[in-house]
């Protein structure tokens, strides 16, 4: 139901009374119907599903979301678990579930920090 990908509008034209655009998906280009984004402009990013732009992609919001992920755990890294820090510094590879600082059901020691919901 939901395979939709973001692409950048290269050109826009009216064809048979419909707003069509050539959209660039990082090198792959496809004609897309933009009738549902009437004020679409070249350079805009749109989300495309089965040949139709269904919504604009808000670039600032995308960047803000990624930044919020970067900021997650900043406090954790300052006050976090000593063993895990040592392991990382020793270059012990960590794959699979991340370092467990407590058994399930206990709050991790020394990592209580306010949750920043964005």
């Amino acid at each position, binding site marked *: *139901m939901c395979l939709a*990908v973001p692409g*950048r509008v290269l050109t826009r034209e009216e064809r048979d009374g419909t707003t069509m655009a050539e959209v660039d998906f990082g090198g792959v280009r496809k004609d897309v*119907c933009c009738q*549902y984004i009437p004020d679409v402009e070249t350079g805009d990013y749109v989300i495309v*599903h089965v040949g139709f732009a269904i*919504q604009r992609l808000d670039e600032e919001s995308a960047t803000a979301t990624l930044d919020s992920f970067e900021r997650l755990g900043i406090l954790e890294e300052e006050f976090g678990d000593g063993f895990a820090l040592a392991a990382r510094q020793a270059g012990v590879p960590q794959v699979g579930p991340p370092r467990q600082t407590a058994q*399930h059901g206990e709050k991790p020691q020394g990592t209580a920090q306010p949750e920043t919901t964005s």
Partner: protein
Amino acid sequence: MKYLDEFSNPELARKLLDRIHEATTRPWAIMEVCGGQTHSIIRHGIDQLLPEQIEMIHGPGCPVCVTPLEIIDKALEIAARPGVIFCSFGDMLRVPGSSADLFRIKSAGGDVRVVYSPLDALKLARENPDRQVVFFGIGFETTAPANAMTVYQARRLGIENFSLLVSHVLVPPAIAAIMEAPTCRVQAFLAAGHVCSVMGTGEYPPLAEKYAVPIVVTGFEPLDILEGVRRTVMQLESGRHQVENAYPRAVLADGNPAAKAMLSNVFEVTDRTWRGIGMIPASGWRLSDAYREFDAEARFDVASIRTAESAVCRSGEVLQGLIKPNECAAFGRECTPRNPLGATMVSSEGACAAYYLYRRLDLVAAPRG
């Protein structure tokens, strides 16, 4: 792809996973509604990386899985008729009807074509004025605007040899139906991000309230899924049940007004039978009276078809998260991806097909991590 690849960043995924692990203190059952989300979870191995206490229940948000058997059989009948070019998304070609699938019809001489967009089908109709071109219009609210616009264009451009076999289904009624089931175990939902790109988030607060479940609008890339799960767990752990938008770059509260206007023009709400689940009132869309002439069911006068679902298939219970695929007696025996009895074993994100792969790995005890 820009604004896509960044949302697979492994370091950021690790941070999100750490937060989820820290926050989870109790078992939780979360349903991801959309088949695309299920696909992403499996494809990236996300459910192996989440805390063991979190159970992701794969929801019925997969049009392949829930398109009613009757409609599949009608599609097969229409596709087999001479003079018809039957166009479909690739997803539907292997879905079993009562006794065949579109691949089988193709091999028997039916002109069945895979297209990327319904507009490709319209183009075929223009290029083949002596043939009847039918497009299989399945999908959730995400896909409906594309189908609506195509029919609207057909009318405007006077393309009379085009018709739509419609089987649209709606998410909010499905959520309600799932929560109404007495054996329901779902405690929270990841709502389908691209459905909400079209429809907005307004239909969800009443559901969150009525059933006391968090509903977090979630995207599809690994970081999006993890963020959706993180916010859901935060709510569950603190006893909240609100609607949150964890996919703000693609979802606005009001959705896409132009698309919604077209949808209410071209479609009208109808009762819809969800394969394996049963009839959910007011859970689907069909063409409105103004566009009835483009309805393939009417145009081809496909008589009421006798459908015969496999007697042993329990995909409905799987779709509602009531049983796990391996709890079905036919799982891995009569029913495998090569010999599917129901749609959940066909679709690449169907729960049964997904389980089939995982169970095999568990059985041979592969080293993990």
